Protein backbone atom coordinates (compact mmCIF):
# COMPACT_ATOMS: atom_id res chain seq x y z
CA UNK A 1 0.00 0.00 0.00
CA UNK A 2 1.40 3.37 -0.96
CA UNK A 3 1.40 6.34 1.37
CA UNK A 4 -1.31 7.98 -0.73
CA UNK A 5 -3.57 4.98 -0.53
CA UNK A 6 -3.03 4.90 3.21
CA UNK A 7 -3.99 8.54 3.42
CA UNK A 8 -7.15 7.99 1.39
CA UNK A 9 -8.15 5.10 3.55
CA UNK A 10 -7.56 7.20 6.63
CA UNK A 11 -9.81 9.94 5.23
CA UNK A 12 -12.50 7.35 4.58
CA UNK A 13 -12.19 6.22 8.17
CA UNK A 14 -12.53 9.78 9.43
CA UNK A 15 -15.62 10.22 7.29
CA UNK A 16 -17.13 7.05 8.69
CA UNK A 17 -16.34 8.10 12.22
CA UNK A 18 -17.93 11.52 11.63
CA UNK A 19 -21.14 10.01 10.39
CA UNK A 20 -21.26 7.67 13.36
CA UNK A 21 -20.65 10.43 15.88
CA UNK A 22 -23.09 12.82 14.22
CA UNK A 23 -25.89 10.43 15.00
CA UNK A 24 -25.67 11.55 18.62
CA UNK A 25 -27.89 14.50 19.06
CA UNK A 26 -25.88 15.72 22.04
CA UNK A 27 -23.08 16.38 19.59
CA UNK A 28 -23.57 19.08 17.02
CA UNK A 29 -21.61 19.36 13.78
CA UNK A 30 -19.33 22.04 15.23
CA UNK A 31 -18.50 19.79 18.21
CA UNK A 32 -17.80 16.94 15.85
CA UNK A 33 -15.46 19.22 13.85
CA UNK A 34 -13.64 20.02 17.06
CA UNK A 35 -13.43 16.37 18.10
CA UNK A 36 -12.32 15.38 14.63
CA UNK A 37 -9.50 17.88 14.85
CA UNK A 38 -8.56 16.33 18.16
CA UNK A 39 -8.62 12.87 16.67
CA UNK A 40 -6.46 14.03 13.76
CA UNK A 41 -3.97 15.54 16.21
CA UNK A 42 -3.80 12.23 18.02
CA UNK A 43 -3.43 10.25 14.79
CA UNK A 44 -0.67 12.53 13.48
CA UNK A 45 1.26 12.11 16.69
CA UNK A 46 0.90 8.34 16.62
CA UNK A 47 1.99 8.17 12.96
CA UNK A 48 4.99 10.32 13.81
CA UNK A 49 5.77 7.80 16.55
CA UNK A 50 5.93 5.08 13.89
CA UNK A 51 2.45 3.54 13.71
CA UNK A 52 0.77 2.82 10.39
CA UNK A 53 -2.22 5.07 9.55
CA UNK A 54 -4.93 2.56 10.38
CA UNK A 55 -3.22 1.45 13.57
CA UNK A 56 -2.89 5.08 14.57
CA UNK A 57 -6.57 5.64 13.81
CA UNK A 58 -7.65 2.67 15.91
CA UNK A 59 -5.52 3.70 18.86
CA UNK A 60 -6.66 7.32 18.66
CA UNK A 61 -10.33 6.35 18.58
CA UNK A 62 -9.80 3.96 21.46
CA UNK A 63 -8.12 6.72 23.47
CA UNK A 64 -11.06 9.00 22.95
CA UNK A 65 -13.05 6.54 25.00
CA UNK A 66 -16.62 5.40 24.67
CA UNK A 67 -18.97 7.60 22.72
CA UNK A 68 -21.67 7.07 25.34
CA UNK A 69 -19.54 8.65 28.01
CA UNK A 70 -18.51 11.48 25.73
CA UNK A 71 -22.11 12.27 24.81
CA UNK A 72 -23.12 12.12 28.46
CA UNK A 73 -20.51 14.72 29.34
CA UNK A 74 -21.60 16.93 26.47
CA UNK A 75 -25.22 16.53 27.51
CA UNK A 76 -24.38 17.79 31.00
CA UNK A 77 -23.10 21.04 29.57
CA UNK A 78 -25.65 21.29 26.74
CA UNK A 79 -28.80 19.89 28.28
CA UNK A 80 -30.92 21.99 25.92
CA UNK A 81 -29.83 19.75 23.08
CA UNK A 82 -31.71 16.83 24.51
CA UNK A 83 -34.82 18.90 23.89
CA UNK A 84 -34.69 18.75 20.20
CA UNK A 85 -35.71 22.15 18.89
CA UNK A 86 -37.60 22.51 15.71
CA UNK A 87 -35.63 25.07 13.73
CA UNK A 88 -38.17 26.46 11.35
CA UNK A 89 -35.96 28.75 9.37
CA UNK A 90 -33.38 26.16 8.58
CA UNK A 91 -30.16 24.80 9.90
CA UNK A 92 -27.51 27.51 10.36
CA UNK A 93 -24.81 24.92 9.82
CA UNK A 94 -25.93 23.94 6.38
CA UNK A 95 -26.73 26.73 3.93
CA UNK A 96 -28.23 24.36 1.34
CA UNK A 97 -30.85 23.03 3.75
CA UNK A 98 -31.37 26.59 4.89
CA UNK A 99 -32.41 27.98 1.52
CA UNK A 100 -34.52 24.89 1.03
CA UNK A 101 -36.50 25.37 4.20
CA UNK A 102 -36.80 29.10 3.52
CA UNK A 103 -38.38 28.33 0.17
CA UNK A 104 -40.73 25.92 1.89
CA UNK A 105 -41.69 28.60 4.32
CA UNK A 106 -42.47 31.10 1.59
CA UNK A 107 -44.52 28.53 -0.26
CA UNK A 108 -46.42 27.87 2.96
CA UNK A 109 -47.02 31.59 3.51
CA UNK A 110 -48.33 31.95 -0.04
CA UNK A 111 -50.61 28.92 0.23
CA UNK A 112 -51.83 30.00 3.67
CA UNK A 113 -52.55 33.50 2.39
CA UNK A 114 -54.29 32.01 -0.63
CA UNK A 115 -56.51 29.95 1.66
CA UNK A 116 -57.29 32.97 3.84
CA UNK A 117 -58.19 35.08 0.82
CA UNK A 118 -60.18 32.34 -0.90
CA UNK A 119 -62.60 31.95 2.00
CA UNK A 120 -63.48 35.65 1.70
CA UNK A 121 -63.97 35.54 -2.09
CA UNK A 122 -67.59 34.26 -2.01
CA UNK A 123 -68.44 37.40 -0.05
CA UNK A 124 -67.82 39.39 -3.22
CA UNK A 125 -70.76 37.49 -4.67
CA UNK A 126 -72.97 38.32 -1.75
CA UNK A 127 -72.56 35.08 0.19
CA UNK A 128 -71.99 36.30 3.73
CA UNK A 129 -70.72 33.97 6.43
CA UNK A 130 -73.36 35.20 8.86
CA UNK A 131 -76.31 34.61 6.51
CA UNK A 132 -75.24 31.72 4.29
CA UNK A 133 -74.03 29.25 6.89
CA UNK A 134 -75.12 26.30 4.75
CA UNK A 135 -72.91 27.34 1.85
CA UNK A 136 -69.86 27.64 4.07
CA UNK A 137 -70.68 24.43 5.96
CA UNK A 138 -70.55 22.29 2.83
CA UNK A 139 -67.70 24.18 1.22
CA UNK A 140 -65.25 24.94 4.02
CA UNK A 141 -62.93 22.05 3.17
CA UNK A 142 -62.69 23.45 -0.36
CA UNK A 143 -61.13 26.65 0.96
CA UNK A 144 -58.39 24.90 2.94
CA UNK A 145 -57.48 21.50 1.52
CA UNK A 146 -56.76 22.46 -2.10
CA UNK A 147 -54.16 24.92 -0.79
CA UNK A 148 -52.60 22.27 1.37
CA UNK A 149 -52.54 19.98 -1.68
CA UNK A 150 -50.91 22.76 -3.72
CA UNK A 151 -48.22 23.13 -1.08
CA UNK A 152 -47.56 19.38 -0.95
CA UNK A 153 -47.63 18.97 -4.72
CA UNK A 154 -45.24 21.90 -5.12
CA UNK A 155 -42.92 20.42 -2.53
CA UNK A 156 -42.88 17.08 -4.30
CA UNK A 157 -42.67 18.67 -7.74
CA UNK A 158 -45.69 16.72 -8.84
CA UNK A 159 -45.97 15.83 -12.50
CA UNK A 160 -48.65 17.05 -14.86
CA UNK A 161 -50.94 13.98 -14.77
CA UNK A 162 -51.06 14.14 -10.97
CA UNK A 163 -51.77 17.88 -11.00
CA UNK A 164 -54.53 17.26 -13.53
CA UNK A 165 -56.03 14.55 -11.32
CA UNK A 166 -55.92 16.79 -8.26
CA UNK A 167 -57.60 19.66 -10.07
CA UNK A 168 -60.25 17.33 -11.44
CA UNK A 169 -61.00 15.82 -8.03
CA UNK A 170 -61.22 19.15 -6.24
CA UNK A 171 -63.42 20.39 -9.07
CA UNK A 172 -65.63 17.34 -8.64
CA UNK A 173 -65.84 18.12 -4.93
CA UNK A 174 -66.89 21.69 -5.66
CA UNK A 175 -69.56 20.48 -8.07
CA UNK A 176 -70.83 17.85 -5.64
CA UNK A 177 -71.10 20.39 -2.84
CA UNK A 178 -72.94 23.02 -4.83
CA UNK A 179 -74.71 21.50 -7.83
CA UNK A 180 -77.45 19.59 -5.98
CA UNK A 181 -80.53 21.50 -4.95
CA UNK A 182 -80.19 20.80 -1.23
CA UNK A 183 -82.43 22.71 1.12
CA UNK A 184 -80.96 24.51 4.11
CA UNK A 185 -82.30 21.94 6.57
CA UNK A 186 -81.84 18.80 4.43
CA UNK A 187 -80.13 15.77 5.91
CA UNK A 188 -77.97 15.34 2.83
CA UNK A 189 -76.45 18.75 3.46
CA UNK A 190 -75.13 17.56 6.82
CA UNK A 191 -73.84 14.38 5.24
CA UNK A 192 -72.05 16.31 2.50
CA UNK A 193 -70.50 18.64 5.08
CA UNK A 194 -69.08 15.62 6.91
CA UNK A 195 -68.08 13.44 3.99
CA UNK A 196 -66.69 15.97 1.55
CA UNK A 197 -63.77 16.86 3.90
CA UNK A 198 -62.97 13.14 4.23
CA UNK A 199 -63.05 12.66 0.46
CA UNK A 200 -60.92 15.76 -0.09
CA UNK A 201 -58.48 14.80 2.65
CA UNK A 202 -57.77 11.62 0.72
CA UNK A 203 -57.21 13.77 -2.36
CA UNK A 204 -54.64 15.66 -0.27
CA UNK A 205 -53.23 12.20 0.41
CA UNK A 206 -52.82 11.75 -3.33
CA UNK A 207 -50.80 14.95 -3.44
CA UNK A 208 -48.83 13.71 -0.44
CA UNK A 209 -47.82 10.35 -1.87
CA UNK A 210 -47.36 12.01 -5.29
CA UNK A 211 -45.61 9.72 -7.71
CA UNK A 212 -45.88 6.39 -6.01
CA UNK A 213 -49.42 6.21 -4.77
CA UNK A 214 -49.32 2.43 -5.02
CA UNK A 215 -46.56 2.09 -2.48
CA UNK A 216 -47.76 0.80 0.87
CA UNK A 217 -44.92 2.61 2.66
CA UNK A 218 -45.85 5.97 1.18
CA UNK A 219 -49.46 5.46 2.13
CA UNK A 220 -48.35 4.66 5.67
CA UNK A 221 -46.40 7.92 5.61
CA UNK A 222 -49.62 9.67 4.71
CA UNK A 223 -51.37 8.04 7.67
CA UNK A 224 -48.56 9.32 9.90
CA UNK A 225 -48.88 12.73 8.28
CA UNK A 226 -52.60 12.73 9.00
CA UNK A 227 -52.12 11.99 12.70
CA UNK A 228 -49.44 14.61 13.18
CA UNK A 229 -51.33 17.15 11.09
CA UNK A 230 -54.38 16.67 13.26
CA UNK A 231 -52.41 17.17 16.46
CA UNK A 232 -50.65 20.26 15.14
CA UNK A 233 -53.92 21.68 13.90
CA UNK A 234 -55.49 21.20 17.33
CA UNK A 235 -52.49 22.91 18.96
CA UNK A 236 -52.67 25.82 16.53
CA UNK A 237 -56.41 26.07 17.17
CA UNK A 238 -55.79 26.21 20.93
CA UNK A 239 -53.22 28.96 20.49
CA UNK A 240 -55.61 30.79 18.16
CA UNK A 241 -58.34 30.50 20.76
CA UNK A 242 -56.15 32.19 23.36
CA UNK A 243 -55.31 34.94 20.85
CA UNK A 244 -59.00 35.53 20.09
CA UNK A 245 -59.84 35.68 23.77
CA UNK A 246 -57.21 38.33 24.44
CA UNK A 247 -58.12 40.27 21.36
CA UNK A 248 -61.78 40.30 22.28
CA UNK A 249 -61.33 41.29 25.90
CA UNK A 250 -58.60 43.89 25.44
CA UNK A 251 -60.54 45.68 22.71
CA UNK A 252 -63.76 45.41 24.64
CA UNK A 253 -61.96 47.10 27.53
CA UNK A 254 -61.43 50.22 25.41
CA UNK A 255 -64.98 50.22 24.13
CA UNK A 256 -64.44 48.60 20.73
CA UNK A 257 -66.21 45.29 20.35
CA UNK A 258 -64.33 43.32 17.67
CA UNK A 259 -66.94 40.57 17.41
CA UNK A 260 -67.61 41.18 13.74
CA UNK A 261 -63.90 41.16 12.89
CA UNK A 262 -63.27 37.99 14.87
CA UNK A 263 -66.19 35.94 13.61
CA UNK A 264 -66.14 37.16 10.01
CA UNK A 265 -62.43 37.50 9.38
CA UNK A 266 -60.01 36.16 11.93
CA UNK A 267 -61.75 32.89 12.71
CA UNK A 268 -62.50 31.64 9.16
CA UNK A 269 -59.27 32.95 7.63
CA UNK A 270 -57.21 31.67 10.56
CA UNK A 271 -58.82 28.23 10.42
CA UNK A 272 -58.14 27.64 6.73
CA UNK A 273 -54.64 29.10 6.88
CA UNK A 274 -54.00 27.02 10.02
CA UNK A 275 -54.69 23.87 8.01
CA UNK A 276 -51.89 24.79 5.61
CA UNK A 277 -49.52 25.83 8.40
CA UNK A 278 -50.10 22.54 10.20
CA UNK A 279 -49.23 20.65 7.01
CA UNK A 280 -46.07 22.67 6.60
CA UNK A 281 -45.09 22.08 10.24
CA UNK A 282 -45.44 18.33 9.88
CA UNK A 283 -43.33 18.40 6.71
CA UNK A 284 -40.69 20.59 8.32
CA UNK A 285 -40.35 18.58 11.47
CA UNK A 286 -40.79 15.12 9.98
CA UNK A 287 -37.43 13.74 11.00
CA UNK A 288 -36.67 16.21 13.76
CA UNK A 289 -39.28 15.73 16.42
CA UNK A 290 -40.66 12.42 17.58
CA UNK A 291 -44.18 11.75 16.42
CA UNK A 292 -46.72 12.30 19.13
CA UNK A 293 -49.69 10.36 17.74
CA UNK A 294 -48.11 6.94 18.46
CA UNK A 295 -47.28 8.05 22.01
CA UNK A 296 -50.89 9.02 22.65
CA UNK A 297 -51.89 5.67 21.17
CA UNK A 298 -49.67 3.83 23.62
CA UNK A 299 -51.18 5.77 26.49
CA UNK A 300 -54.78 5.26 25.50
CA UNK A 301 -54.84 1.72 24.11
CA UNK A 302 -54.83 0.09 27.58
CA UNK A 303 -57.38 2.59 28.88
CA UNK A 304 -59.77 2.10 25.99
CA UNK A 305 -59.36 -1.65 26.22
CA UNK A 306 -60.25 -1.54 29.90
CA UNK A 307 -63.27 0.70 29.23
CA UNK A 308 -64.61 -1.52 26.45
CA UNK A 309 -64.11 -4.70 28.43
CA UNK A 310 -65.83 -3.12 31.42
CA UNK A 311 -68.74 -2.17 29.17
CA UNK A 312 -68.99 -5.72 27.81
CA UNK A 313 -68.91 -7.18 31.31
CA UNK A 314 -71.61 -4.74 32.40
CA UNK A 315 -73.80 -5.70 29.44
CA UNK A 316 -73.35 -9.39 30.23
CA UNK A 317 -73.86 -8.95 33.96
CA UNK A 318 -77.00 -6.83 33.89
CA UNK A 319 -78.26 -8.40 30.66
CA UNK A 320 -79.48 -4.97 29.61
CA UNK A 321 -79.83 -4.75 25.88
CA UNK A 322 -78.18 -1.78 24.27
CA UNK A 323 -80.78 0.91 24.02
CA UNK A 324 -80.80 1.78 20.39
CA UNK A 325 -81.56 5.44 20.14
CA UNK A 326 -81.67 7.17 16.83
CA UNK A 327 -78.15 8.44 17.25
CA UNK A 328 -76.71 5.23 18.72
CA UNK A 329 -75.30 3.97 15.47
CA UNK A 330 -73.31 7.14 14.95
CA UNK A 331 -71.91 6.87 18.48
CA UNK A 332 -70.75 3.33 17.82
CA UNK A 333 -69.36 4.35 14.44
CA UNK A 334 -67.24 6.89 16.25
CA UNK A 335 -66.15 4.22 18.72
CA UNK A 336 -64.96 2.07 15.82
CA UNK A 337 -63.16 5.08 14.34
CA UNK A 338 -61.33 5.64 17.63
CA UNK A 339 -60.38 1.96 17.86
CA UNK A 340 -59.21 2.01 14.26
CA UNK A 341 -57.18 5.14 15.00
CA UNK A 342 -55.55 3.47 17.99
CA UNK A 343 -54.72 0.49 15.82
CA UNK A 344 -53.44 2.57 12.90
CA UNK A 345 -51.15 4.78 14.91
CA UNK A 346 -49.58 1.97 16.80
CA UNK A 347 -48.99 0.17 13.50
CA UNK A 348 -47.48 3.36 12.10
CA UNK A 349 -44.86 3.49 14.85
CA UNK A 350 -44.14 -0.20 15.14
CA UNK A 351 -40.98 -1.79 13.89
CA UNK A 352 -42.39 -4.43 11.54
CA UNK A 353 -39.59 -6.83 12.45
CA UNK A 354 -39.98 -6.62 16.22
CA UNK A 355 -41.31 -9.82 17.84
CA UNK A 356 -44.81 -9.99 19.28
CA UNK A 357 -45.25 -8.47 22.69
CA UNK A 358 -47.82 -7.80 25.35
CA UNK A 359 -48.94 -4.64 23.55
CA UNK A 360 -49.97 -6.63 20.48
CA UNK A 361 -52.16 -8.83 22.64
CA UNK A 362 -53.64 -5.79 24.29
CA UNK A 363 -54.42 -4.44 20.87
CA UNK A 364 -56.11 -7.64 19.84
CA UNK A 365 -58.22 -7.45 23.01
CA UNK A 366 -59.16 -3.87 22.15
CA UNK A 367 -60.18 -4.70 18.59
CA UNK A 368 -62.08 -7.83 19.57
CA UNK A 369 -64.02 -6.08 22.33
CA UNK A 370 -64.90 -3.23 19.99
CA UNK A 371 -66.10 -5.78 17.44
CA UNK A 372 -68.17 -7.59 20.07
CA UNK A 373 -69.85 -4.36 21.11
CA UNK A 374 -70.52 -3.42 17.53
CA UNK A 375 -72.05 -6.79 16.78
CA UNK A 376 -74.37 -6.37 19.78
CA UNK A 377 -75.40 -2.97 18.46
CA UNK A 378 -75.98 -4.31 14.96
CA UNK A 379 -78.06 -7.19 16.32
CA UNK A 380 -80.18 -4.77 18.28
CA UNK A 381 -80.64 -2.51 15.33
CA UNK A 382 -81.28 -5.04 12.59
CA UNK A 383 -84.74 -4.87 11.20
CA UNK A 384 -85.61 -1.75 13.08
CA UNK A 385 -83.64 0.45 10.77
CA UNK A 386 -85.93 -0.26 7.85
CA UNK A 387 -89.20 -1.02 9.61
CA UNK A 388 -89.47 1.49 12.39
CA UNK A 389 -87.62 4.56 11.26
CA UNK A 390 -87.46 4.07 7.52
CA UNK A 391 -84.33 4.56 5.50
CA UNK A 392 -82.96 8.05 5.67
CA UNK A 393 -79.65 9.22 4.22
CA UNK A 394 -78.23 9.57 7.74
CA UNK A 395 -79.03 6.01 8.71
CA UNK A 396 -77.85 4.59 5.42
CA UNK A 397 -74.55 6.45 5.76
CA UNK A 398 -74.10 5.42 9.39
CA UNK A 399 -74.86 1.80 8.56
CA UNK A 400 -72.53 1.85 5.56
CA UNK A 401 -69.71 3.25 7.65
CA UNK A 402 -70.34 0.69 10.32
CA UNK A 403 -70.05 -2.11 7.80
CA UNK A 404 -66.84 -0.68 6.32
CA UNK A 405 -65.19 -0.26 9.71
CA UNK A 406 -66.42 -3.61 10.92
CA UNK A 407 -64.94 -5.34 7.89
CA UNK A 408 -61.64 -3.57 8.38
CA UNK A 409 -61.42 -4.33 12.10
CA UNK A 410 -62.57 -7.93 11.74
CA UNK A 411 -59.87 -8.69 9.22
CA UNK A 412 -57.34 -6.70 11.28
CA UNK A 413 -58.21 -8.80 14.31
CA UNK A 414 -57.68 -11.94 12.25
CA UNK A 415 -54.30 -10.67 11.04
CA UNK A 416 -53.31 -9.63 14.56
CA UNK A 417 -54.20 -13.06 15.87
CA UNK A 418 -52.17 -14.73 13.17
CA UNK A 419 -49.31 -12.37 13.88
CA UNK A 420 -49.38 -13.14 17.58
CA UNK A 421 -49.33 -16.82 16.72
CA UNK A 422 -46.44 -16.08 14.37
CA UNK A 423 -48.26 -17.27 11.27
CA UNK A 424 -48.03 -14.03 9.29
CA UNK A 425 -45.54 -11.19 9.40
CA UNK A 426 -46.58 -7.85 10.81
CA UNK A 427 -46.25 -6.27 7.38
CA UNK A 428 -49.47 -8.04 6.34
CA UNK A 429 -51.44 -5.92 8.79
CA UNK A 430 -49.73 -2.78 7.57
CA UNK A 431 -50.49 -3.63 3.96
CA UNK A 432 -54.11 -4.39 4.81
CA UNK A 433 -54.57 -0.99 6.43
CA UNK A 434 -52.86 0.99 3.69
CA UNK A 435 -54.67 -1.01 1.02
CA UNK A 436 -57.98 -0.15 2.69
CA UNK A 437 -57.53 3.62 2.31
CA UNK A 438 -59.22 3.77 -1.14
CA UNK A 439 -62.30 2.11 0.38
CA UNK A 440 -62.84 5.15 2.63
CA UNK A 441 -62.30 7.44 -0.34
CA UNK A 442 -64.79 5.56 -2.50
CA UNK A 443 -67.40 5.53 0.27
CA UNK A 444 -66.99 9.24 1.04
CA UNK A 445 -67.42 10.08 -2.66
CA UNK A 446 -70.47 7.81 -2.88
CA UNK A 447 -72.09 9.65 0.01
CA UNK A 448 -71.24 13.02 -1.46
CA UNK A 449 -72.13 12.28 -5.08
CA UNK A 450 -74.81 9.58 -5.06
CA UNK A 451 -76.70 9.98 -1.80
CA UNK A 452 -78.45 13.28 -2.58
CA UNK A 453 -80.03 12.00 -5.83
CA UNK A 454 -80.65 8.54 -4.32
CA UNK A 455 -82.62 10.05 -1.47
CA UNK A 456 -84.22 12.65 -3.70
CA UNK A 457 -82.43 15.56 -2.01
CA UNK A 458 -84.07 15.26 1.39
Amino acid sequence: MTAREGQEELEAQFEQWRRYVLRRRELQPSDVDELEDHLRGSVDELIAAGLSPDEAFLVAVKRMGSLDELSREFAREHSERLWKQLVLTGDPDSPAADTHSRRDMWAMVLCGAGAAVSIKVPELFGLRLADDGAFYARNFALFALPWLAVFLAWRRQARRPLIGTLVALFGLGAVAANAYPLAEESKSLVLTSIHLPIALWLVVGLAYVADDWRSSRRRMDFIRFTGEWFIYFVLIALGGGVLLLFLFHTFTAIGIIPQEFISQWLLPCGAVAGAVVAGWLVEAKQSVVENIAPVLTRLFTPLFTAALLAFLVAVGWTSHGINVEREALILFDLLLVVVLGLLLYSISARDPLAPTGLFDKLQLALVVSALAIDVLVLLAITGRITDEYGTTPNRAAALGENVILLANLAYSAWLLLRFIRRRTPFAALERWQTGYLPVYAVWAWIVVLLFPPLFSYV
Partner: protein
Amino acid sequence: MKVAKDLVAASATPMVLGILAEGESYGYAILRRINELSGGELDWTEGLLYPLLHRLERLGYSESSWQSVAGERRRKYYRITDKGLAELAEQRRQWDTVTDALKEIWLGLGDRRPLTAIPLGCRA
Protein backbone atom coordinates in the same frame (compact mmCIF):
# COMPACT_ATOMS: atom_id res chain seq x y z
CA MET B 1 -0.25 6.82 40.50
CA LYS B 2 -3.30 8.40 38.93
CA VAL B 3 -4.91 11.49 40.37
CA ALA B 4 -8.43 10.80 41.67
CA LYS B 5 -11.29 11.77 39.40
CA ASP B 6 -12.82 14.27 41.82
CA LEU B 7 -9.56 16.09 42.18
CA VAL B 8 -9.06 16.20 38.41
CA ALA B 9 -12.53 17.66 38.01
CA ALA B 10 -12.03 20.23 40.76
CA SER B 11 -8.76 21.47 39.34
CA ALA B 12 -9.93 21.45 35.74
CA THR B 13 -11.19 25.03 35.50
CA PRO B 14 -8.09 26.79 36.93
CA MET B 15 -5.90 24.48 34.89
CA VAL B 16 -7.55 25.34 31.58
CA LEU B 17 -7.82 29.03 32.42
CA GLY B 18 -4.15 29.03 33.38
CA ILE B 19 -3.13 27.41 30.10
CA LEU B 20 -5.26 29.87 28.13
CA ALA B 21 -3.63 32.72 30.07
CA GLU B 22 -0.35 31.63 28.47
CA GLY B 23 -1.85 32.31 25.04
CA GLU B 24 -4.70 31.18 22.81
CA SER B 25 -4.89 27.48 22.19
CA TYR B 26 -7.06 24.63 20.92
CA GLY B 27 -8.38 21.43 22.46
CA TYR B 28 -5.72 18.96 21.49
CA ALA B 29 -2.87 21.32 22.41
CA ILE B 30 -4.46 22.04 25.79
CA LEU B 31 -4.68 18.33 26.53
CA ARG B 32 -1.07 17.86 25.49
CA ARG B 33 0.00 20.72 27.71
CA ILE B 34 -1.80 19.25 30.71
CA ASN B 35 -0.17 15.92 30.07
CA GLU B 36 3.20 17.60 29.87
CA LEU B 37 2.68 19.67 33.03
CA SER B 38 1.61 16.70 35.12
CA GLY B 39 4.07 14.23 33.67
CA GLY B 40 1.12 12.17 32.38
CA GLU B 41 -0.42 11.77 35.82
CA LEU B 42 -3.53 13.78 35.18
CA ASP B 43 -6.04 11.62 33.37
CA TRP B 44 -8.05 14.01 31.25
CA THR B 45 -10.58 12.80 28.76
CA GLU B 46 -12.13 14.58 25.81
CA GLY B 47 -15.42 14.26 27.61
CA LEU B 48 -14.02 16.41 30.38
CA LEU B 49 -12.13 18.93 28.26
CA TYR B 50 -14.56 19.94 25.51
CA PRO B 51 -17.70 20.41 27.59
CA LEU B 52 -15.53 22.39 30.03
CA LEU B 53 -14.25 24.60 27.22
CA HIS B 54 -17.82 25.19 26.12
CA ARG B 55 -18.86 26.03 29.66
CA LEU B 56 -16.04 28.53 30.09
CA GLU B 57 -17.15 30.14 26.86
CA ARG B 58 -20.79 30.24 27.98
CA LEU B 59 -19.75 31.88 31.27
CA GLY B 60 -17.78 34.47 29.31
CA TYR B 61 -14.35 33.40 30.64
CA SER B 62 -13.15 32.62 27.13
CA GLU B 63 -13.95 33.32 23.50
CA SER B 64 -13.54 31.00 20.59
CA SER B 65 -13.17 31.25 16.85
CA TRP B 66 -12.42 28.92 13.98
CA GLN B 67 -9.08 29.88 12.49
CA SER B 68 -6.52 28.35 10.24
CA VAL B 69 -2.98 29.20 11.14
CA ALA B 70 -0.56 28.98 8.20
CA GLY B 71 0.17 25.39 7.26
CA GLU B 72 -2.23 23.98 9.82
CA ARG B 73 -5.76 22.62 9.82
CA ARG B 74 -8.71 24.87 10.58
CA ARG B 75 -9.16 24.71 14.31
CA LYS B 76 -11.29 26.13 17.04
CA TYR B 77 -9.06 28.38 19.09
CA TYR B 78 -9.94 29.55 22.59
CA ARG B 79 -8.80 32.84 24.07
CA ILE B 80 -9.11 33.98 27.68
CA THR B 81 -11.15 37.14 28.37
CA ASP B 82 -10.69 39.76 31.07
CA LYS B 83 -13.49 38.13 32.98
CA GLY B 84 -11.62 34.84 32.64
CA LEU B 85 -8.44 36.41 33.96
CA ALA B 86 -10.31 37.74 36.98
CA GLU B 87 -11.80 34.29 37.57
CA LEU B 88 -8.37 32.75 37.26
CA ALA B 89 -7.00 35.15 39.88
CA GLU B 90 -9.87 34.29 42.20
CA GLN B 91 -9.44 30.54 41.69
CA ARG B 92 -5.75 30.90 42.21
CA ARG B 93 -6.32 32.63 45.56
CA GLN B 94 -8.56 29.78 46.66
CA TRP B 95 -6.18 27.09 45.49
CA ASP B 96 -3.27 28.85 47.22
CA THR B 97 -5.25 28.78 50.44
CA VAL B 98 -5.91 25.06 50.05
CA THR B 99 -2.37 24.11 49.07
CA ASP B 100 -0.85 26.34 51.75
CA ALA B 101 -2.99 24.70 54.38
CA LEU B 102 -2.14 21.24 53.11
CA LYS B 103 1.55 22.04 53.01
CA GLU B 104 1.38 23.35 56.57
CA ILE B 105 -0.15 20.09 57.78
CA TRP B 106 2.21 17.89 55.83
CA LEU B 107 5.30 19.82 56.93
CA GLY B 108 4.13 19.51 60.51
CA LEU B 109 3.70 15.76 60.09
CA GLY B 110 7.04 15.51 58.35
CA ASP B 111 8.77 17.07 61.40
CA ARG B 112 7.69 14.30 63.65
CA ARG B 113 7.89 11.27 61.41
CA PRO B 114 8.55 10.98 57.72
CA LEU B 115 5.35 10.11 55.85
CA THR B 116 7.07 8.11 53.18
CA ALA B 117 8.81 5.40 55.09
CA ILE B 118 7.06 3.96 58.07
CA PRO B 119 8.38 0.48 58.69
CA LEU B 120 5.59 -1.94 59.43
CA GLY B 121 7.31 -3.12 62.55
CA CYS B 122 6.99 0.29 64.24
CA ARG B 123 3.19 0.14 64.15
CA ALA B 124 2.86 -3.22 65.70
